[in-house]
């Protein structure tokens, strides 16, 4: 192959990657650009540039001009809901992954797949199903409905990431621990858990993000006083259509990115200095 041909190939491949990247990120880009619009309508392309709508957002935070509960309460609900779903799916997911590795039985592979099914279901189906279920058994408070609903969505991610870490864990390490006098619980705590720490952390990160961003299932389970952020944005979108929502969405995306960075940093750092779990 000539060097010209190689150059051409590189340029083609490069443009392909850039175009595809732009396509993937286009929703975010459009929202991002729109949030700086000067006009009052939520349209693309934006006309002019201003930070006006970010200021408007600040008003929302202050005098709660939107729906009740206000923006701040909604944001807290989402943060807290994500944390609960994360904690729940880490505890349950790690134990499930551990159990699945430990006990080999007929139909093992099938059961392992079944734990991951909720990722593949249409979320509308999960939402409707849960709604029916919760109206059948009355008295489940709305916060618990939300946590249980989100757990269904987040649990598979922890099972996958913790399971993948467990698959690469050398069983001889656990045997060595037992040989040195550690009982099963001690072995799990001192050897197994620290060895799969990065899998757990990334599963936890996924769990929080999935819960924080979820709209569909949340939409079927929320109540007036428990209105997570995605639902709050959606309902405001129906009442007031102006670029302040684009500003809010941009902030949410930024927050998500910050969380990603922090967690990524934690995992990498942890590996570097060998933090113990």
């Amino acid at each position, binding site marked *: 192959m000539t060097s010209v041909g190689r150059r051409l190939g590189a340029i083609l491949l490069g443009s392909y990657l850039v175009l595809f990247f732009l396509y993937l990120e286009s929703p975010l880009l459009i929202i991002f650009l729109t949030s700086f619009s000067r006009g009052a309508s939520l349209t693309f392309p934006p006309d002019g540039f201003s930070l006006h709508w970010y200021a408007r957002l600040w008003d929302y935070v202050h005098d709660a001009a939107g729906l009740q509960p206000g923006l701040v309460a909604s944001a807290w609900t989402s943060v807290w809901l994500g944390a609960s779903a994360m904690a729940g799916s880490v505890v349950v997911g790690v134990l499930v992954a551990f159990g699945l590795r430990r006990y080999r039985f007929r139909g093992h592979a099938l059961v392992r797949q079944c734990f991951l099914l909720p990722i593949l279901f249409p979320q509308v189906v999960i939402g409707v199903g849960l709604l029916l279920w919760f109206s059948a058994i009355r008295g489940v408070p709305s916060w618990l409905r939300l946590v249980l609903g989100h757990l269904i969505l987040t649990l598979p991610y922890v099972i996958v990431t913790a399971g993948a870490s467990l698959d690469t864990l*050398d069983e*001889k*390490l656990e*045997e*060595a*621990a*037992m*040989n*040195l*006098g*550690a*009982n099963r619980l*001690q072995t799990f705590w*001192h*050897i197994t858990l*620290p*060895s799969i720490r990065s899998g757990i952390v990334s599963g936890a990160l996924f769990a929080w993000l999935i819960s924080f961003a979820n709209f569909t299932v949340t939409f079927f389970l929320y109540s007036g006083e428990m209105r997570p952020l995605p639902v709050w944005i959606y309902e405001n979108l129906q009442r007031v259509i102006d670029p302040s929502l684009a500003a809010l969405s941009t902030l949410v995306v930024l927050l998500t990115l910050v969380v990603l960075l922090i967690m990524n940093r934690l995992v990498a750092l942890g590996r570097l200095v*060998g933090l*113990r779990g």
Partner: protein
Amino acid sequence: MNQRVPELRLEHVTKRFGSTAAVQDVSFCLWPGEFLSLLGPSGCGKTTTLRMIAGFVVPDAGRILCRGQDITDEPPYRRDVGLVFQNYALFPHMTVAENVAFGLKMRGAARSVTRDRVQWALELVRMPQYGTRRPHELSGGQQQRVAVARVLAAGASLLLFDEPFSNLDAKLRKAMQVELRELQQRLGIATIHVTHDQQEAMSMSDRLIVMNSGQIEQEGTPEEIYRHPRSAFVAEFMGECNRLAGRVVGVDRARGMAELDLDAGGRLLAPWSGPEDPPERAVAFLRPEHITIVSSGAGGGQANVLAGTVRRRVYLGPVTVLYVSLNDDTDVLVQCTNSLNGASGYGPDARVQLHLPPPSVRLMPL
């Protein structure tokens, strides 16, 4: 000597995986301070035996006793048996010192006791200055030393090694063999060592157990087993061995000798002391270093002298190995010690006469 209580005793231990019998009716003792090697080809059940002693595999039948106590059903963490894994299995998220302290920590030892004992163990393996390193910062030999220190610090009263040297290069392997053996003798700690390398087993062990397809073939000191193999399998597993088949034509009970008419031509006298007559056809086994070249040129006719042609000559430094073809093209290996004056002078195509001294021949049924 049977008054002593053995450190470890296996009684008719059997383990099968599905239809394969990994270990079949294995019984043996390990005496205090003894270094015992389990030797055998791949898949003969050595690792399974070791894992049963450590408690990771539960035998289907039989008992395992540790100093007279039945430990067959004890979980691994209640046996003070220290297993050194082939890949060492050091905990990657802990420092060397934390690795060595692990067993003590699990048993709830006081901090000062732990510190002293970790120091003691690291000094034993000549690595006191490596406590703060991590396992991946150590060479293979150093990792192995840490693995040994780790089981010693945990208070093992018995050491188990599963192919401990297979990840080391040839030179380091020799050095570690010597070092481990010296440490084991200094501590007087009973040890079982698993290997498929007969050189390694012979150079380290007080006693050997040769295994084949899940069963014990023979048990004894390295010399006993090398010189008096009880089966064709052991004879051939314990080093190079010539095998000459033939028909038994006579037995002299008074002298304890049988006479063999070799398929390759010639007659061979071999010791035979069995209570029954040897079978009609038998095989004579003979080590290459026991054969001597009596003279060059043709001739022969006497018993235990065979004529042949040198086909190949391999110079190995201290010895030279000659591949000598007999009349029917069977090859006989002859090993000559090289003297100060140089290697033996026989080259390819030289006609030679081999002397096979009767006491060195082992006769076995075909």
